[in-house]
């Protein structure tokens, strides 16, 4: 009898502990006082492996969906300025690989300083999506970058509405407040985009990629660290994929760069740096990149849209 009680109690302790862990994870997801560090991410994945609750499995599933290079966002059409950079910096003295590594570093620093604050803000406050969309549009200095951002943002809305929404509306029951806000924010923006398509309102909603990414990740149950990491990682993947197609390097070499510790360190460093940057303080840290992207239109021949 006593033994039975002890077993029950032990079972209850385990249950309570796992619930505590879940609650802590949720609290962390809502607050995020500190930027991610590589060990924190690792520790989190370790705990995730041990307890495979429904929510973490759902989050892992969403993570894999969103990090898939086959996600139909049309990212392959954009080189984020690489094509223009190569045309502007003919590798005469330096090897093309060295020149590319420079570009990759600059590009990650730039995307982190200009767009990542909007991703984080979208995840933290999904209800501010329309303001974030307006402010990012106001902060995008050239047409080429604006086109790329809007096209991918609208594609993301499309994927969300046609593919993900049904499944993820079901997952979290009862849906947490943030998730609900995220659902509502995407719906509102989508409606606004549809209703203003005809009148071609210059200052209307645009559907920029970065804030939408944050909100969609929130809706799909990704935490803030995952959201930021996948965003920057996807950017790195897109640049590397463009590099392969532009003939800078081969596919194995590209995977080698993607897998490298150096790239991980760069990404973690940039994410940590912009973790608490409010969107008003977001800005271009690589002025030269704005020039390259803006001058993409002047290229004699182009294989990418940016």
């Amino acid at each position, binding site marked *: 009898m006593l033994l039975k009680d002890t077993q029950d109690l032990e079972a209850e302790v385990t249950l309570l502990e796992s619930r505590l862990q879940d609650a802590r994870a949720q609290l962390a997801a809502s607050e995020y006082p500190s930027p991610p560090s590589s060990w924190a991410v690792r520790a989190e994945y370790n705990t995730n492996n041990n307890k495979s609750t429904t929510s973490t499995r759902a989050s892992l599933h969403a993570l894999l969906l969103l990090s898939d290079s086959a996600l139909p966002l049309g990212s392959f059409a954009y080189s984020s300025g690489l094509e223009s950079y190569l045309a502007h910096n003919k590798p005469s003295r330096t090897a093309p690989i060295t020149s590319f590594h420079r570009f990759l570093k600059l590009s990650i620093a730039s995307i982190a300083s200009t767009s990542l604050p909007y991703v984080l803000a979208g995840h933290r406050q999904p209800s501010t999506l329309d303001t974030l969309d307006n402010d990012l549009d106001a*902060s995008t200095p050239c047409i080429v970058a604006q086109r790329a951002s809007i096209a991918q943002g609208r594609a993301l809305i499309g994927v969300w509405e046609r593919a993900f929404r049904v499944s993820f509306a079901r997952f979290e029951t009862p849906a947490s407040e943030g998730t609900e806000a995220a659902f509502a924010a995407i719906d509102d923006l989508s409606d606004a985009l549809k209703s203003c398509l005809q009148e071609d309102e210059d200052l209307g909603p645009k559907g920029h990629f970065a804030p939408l990414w944050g909100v969609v990740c929130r809706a799909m149950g990704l935490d803030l660290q995952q959201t930021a990491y996948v965003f920057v990682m996807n950017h790195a993947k897109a640049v590397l994929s463009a590099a392969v197609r532009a003939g800078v390097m081969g596919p194995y070499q590209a995977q080698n760069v993607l897998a490298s510790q150096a790239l991980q360190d760069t990404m973690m460093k940039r994410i940590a740096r912009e973790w608490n940057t409010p969107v008003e303080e977001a800005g271009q840290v690589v002025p030269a990149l704005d020039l390259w992207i803006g*001058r993409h239109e002047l290229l004699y021949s182009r294989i990418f849209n940016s």
Partner: protein
Amino acid sequence: MRQPAMPIPSPFQSSIAKPGQGKVVLSLLPPNNPTLTTLTYKYPLKLVPRTGGFVPSPDSSALSDTCPSNPVHLYLLTYGGGLLPGDHIEVSITLEPRTRMVVTTPQGSTKIFKTTPNNSGTAPNVIKGHRDQMPANDHLSDMSQQSLDVNIGRQAALCYLPDPSVPFQHSRYAQVQTFTVDATAKGTERSSLCVLDWVTQGRTSRGEDWNFQFWRGRNEVWAEDDKGKRRLLLRDSVILDDESGDLEDTLSDEDEIENENTTYSTTHTGLENPVDLPPQAPAGLTPLNIIAERTRPHGVVGTLILSGPVFEALGSFMLKQFQSQPRIGSRNWSDHAPSVPEPSLSYKGDVTWTAARVRAGFVLVKFGAKDFETAKHWLGGLIREEGSVIREFGEEALCCL
């Protein structure tokens, strides 16, 4: 005809005594007299107006139905021609409907002096007052700062073509320029602005090449309707940071906090600490000059913002010039080892630039150039060639170019 609004009593009248603050209100008194109804400033800032210097001919105006008012020229000066660490310049300008103003910096470049412990104590009260608003970065406290807030009314126009800012080695500087236009004005009644913001690599004569610690320039244009609702139209933000602060933060996080507590009571302990450290210590850990890496190959980078009916012609001209630049690259562009390396067309003339009509009719020109003189001749040349700025505001609007 719309009556000119009565000058509004300044809500800042009592606080205008703060060092570095200035306030200007330009009104149009009947029949057509531009008058500075408010002009206050405090050391180290100096504002010098000049009226009646230039009279635009009526037929030259872009605004066909109304005779433009004469532009008032405002010189923006600081004692010593630059900013010391801790200096906080705060200028507020209101252009009432149909007024026009030219703002220039007649002292040449805005020098940003270096951040050294000896200079840091110039205005401790000002620094403390603004600490809370700043991002969590201790290094911002000894920065030089400049904020310009311009309210541009209906049919009013601002032409602000200053000299570049020249940040000296080890300097830290942050600048926020906010322009508010009337959201209810449409078509030719809109507010107009022309704003140039550029920064150089430093004193090239002393071999400086992006050796400062931090420079941030943020330009925002907001539209405000009659109910006071504001909407961001444009934000241009450039951050040049050598990121040496990051290393210090991670290395001596605890030390920083300890200093924090003592800085207020005994101002000198916190300030003298850096003397013991060689200023190049963080740079030694990061061998590359990050700012130079990110601006290469340019020695000056800048932005020109154009908006509104008065600058419409200039904006279109810049776009046309940009689009008629020669195409870059050859057909076999992916061949990265051409036998004869063709001269890169983009650097012909040593200016790399781009122009785009972004949103709400704004034309944004971004440029990078080898050095200050090159950029000055290029931009001055384009604006003079187009001619509308000189017709509307006079040659003195271009005195910095």
